[in-house]
């Protein structure tokens, strides 16, 4: 009880010397760039875009209130919206697991530290820095065009697919390949996580007669699960907002036949080509809600598979 009284903020407040209190204003002073930024560029615009999502707005005339029209159009009458949502679901659903799977596999390979592991780590990380550029997207466009590298290599294996970027059934795969190519960043994070697992756990498992697969399932995966969750959440949020690759590969159109029309690409077209800013704002809010719900579900579901050492489950 006494302790509780002592811990009350008011009680502590009195003990704070005068000097510190003078520092209060200084706190806001240091924080002022961030405060202005948050008010003018984050909170203000968030409220504004929520408002705009209920209006018809073309940037030139004043916004006209239309209620739920944008949302109604989006969900019931706009085929391209659902198409873009489907393309994005396929993109996220394929690129994230492939990227993380490859990242984990290579990280485990590198974790058997031998000479040169650091060098490989840096080299594998490099695509994560280069892959977001327009330059690499252009390379992808050339390599996956008809007669390009990918076409010829596949043909040599008897798979005559033609150029991926020219065909609706393959174009998205080329964009996904560009994302998976950048597996280096999550790999570095996995590697840091793997280094934290105590060697004794593996030794004990081996003494108990656990094979390589069993050690992976019963030691590596549970010990690494918090890192896996972190990577999963980060990459999922990131993938939903992917833009450059699909834009460049399809010259901004999302083709062929809308096969690479990612959600963000459609949002861009609606907002900045058709100047339907109200509709684009509504799309942005739907995106925020979807990402938010999905992240919450990932965290909720993670209670079943993420193991925090020291929590003594």
């Amino acid at each position, binding site marked *: 009880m006494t302790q509780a009284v002592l811990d009350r903020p008011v009680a502590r407040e009195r003990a704070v010397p005068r000097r510190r209190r003078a520092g209060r204003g*200084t706190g806001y002073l240091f924080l002022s760039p961030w405060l202005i930024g948050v008010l003018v560029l984050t909170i203000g615009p*968030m409220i504004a875009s929520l408002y705009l999502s209920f209006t018809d707005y073309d940037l030139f005339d004043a916004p006209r209130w239309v209620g739920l029209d944008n949302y109604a159009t989006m969900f019931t009458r706009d085929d391209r919206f659902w198409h873009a949502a489907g393309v994005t679901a396929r993109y996220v659903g394929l690129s994230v697991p492939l990227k993380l799977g490859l990242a984990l596999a290579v990280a485990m390979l590198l974790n058997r530290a031998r000479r040169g592991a650091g060098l490989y780590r840096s080299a594998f990380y490099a695509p994560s820095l280069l892959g977001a550029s327009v330059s690499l997207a252009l390379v992808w466009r050339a390599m996956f065009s008809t007669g390009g590298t990918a076409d010829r290599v596949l043909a040599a294996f008897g798979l005559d697919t033609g150029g991926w970027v020219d065909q609706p059934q393959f174009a998205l795969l080329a964009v996904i390949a560009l994302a998976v190519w950048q597996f280096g960043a999550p790999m570095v994070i996995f590697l840091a996580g793997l280094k934290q697992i105590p060697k004794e756990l593996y030794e004990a498992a081996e003494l108990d007669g656990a094979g390589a697969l069993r050690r992976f399932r019963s030691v590596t995966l549970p010990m690494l699960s918090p890192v896996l969750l972190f990577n999963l959440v980060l990459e999922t949020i990131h993938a939903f907002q992917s833009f450059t690759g699909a834009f460049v590969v399809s010259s901004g159109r999302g083709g062929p036949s809308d096969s690479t029309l990612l959600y963000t690409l459609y949002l861009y077209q609606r907002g900045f080509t058709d100047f339907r800013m109200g509709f684009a704002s509504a799309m942005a809010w739907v995106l925020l809600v979807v990402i938010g719900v999905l992240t919450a579900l990932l965290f909720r579901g993670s209670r079943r598979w993420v193991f925090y050492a020291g929590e003594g489950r």
Partner: protein
Amino acid sequence: MTRRSWGWHLLLVLILLVLLYPVVWLVSASFKPAEEVLAGLSLLPSHATGDNYTQVFGGVAGYSVWHYFANSLVISIGAVIGNVLSCSLAAYAFARLHFRGRGPMFGFMLSTIMLPQHVVLIPQYVIFQKLGMVNTFWPLVLPKFLATDAFFVFLMVQFIRALPGELDEAATIDGCGPVRTFRYVIAPLLRPALITTAIFTFIWTWNDFFSQLIYLNDPAKFTLPLALQIFVDQTSQSAFGPMFAMSVLALLPIGLFFFAFQRYLVEGVATSGLKG
């Protein structure tokens, strides 16, 4: 070397070759004569030529490639200065100073890391348009001076919290207020975090396409990514050579940063989960 270690190296080198193939392909394509660029798997041009480079130095869409290079550089350097200054100030306040509302504000700051930029995109565009700043570099640089890249604030807060509090106390006893404590005690110690912030800000801004696409529409203001994108849509297949020459030039600073700072880059990702 043992036999197992040979197998290990062989596997990794194999992965490395597949992984680096597109980059090597790009560099090689930039030195190929026009008719060879798309044809053939060969990484070696039948005869290397600098023609593609001469052409982009001469002019793309009316400007030499250096013009776009300079534009990209101005924006990237502006962003670096903005982020280093504003994020370190905010981080010091969050990590060390006491003021009302610190907890909730810190929580909000963290949540903005995950916020998709699309939610603020259109009103921000309207603001900059009303200010007459569309088609200038301001919309790309100004937000950085307002600590909008919350991730770096978080990175620095973590770093400052790890510094021993006795340093601040000693400075206070010596008569330093918060301003001088920041300037002479915290800022110098914060250098590794500032360098990480500077490198990643530079690379991300240099590579950024979406914001530049939205805010810049006059070729005189174009950056390298925009010029590249316009270039590819205006030209026929025969001009792919110069396009790849320009692509190589666009990747050059990133390559240099990578070789100079790979330790910082990889460690930055490993310890803080930067997305890279």
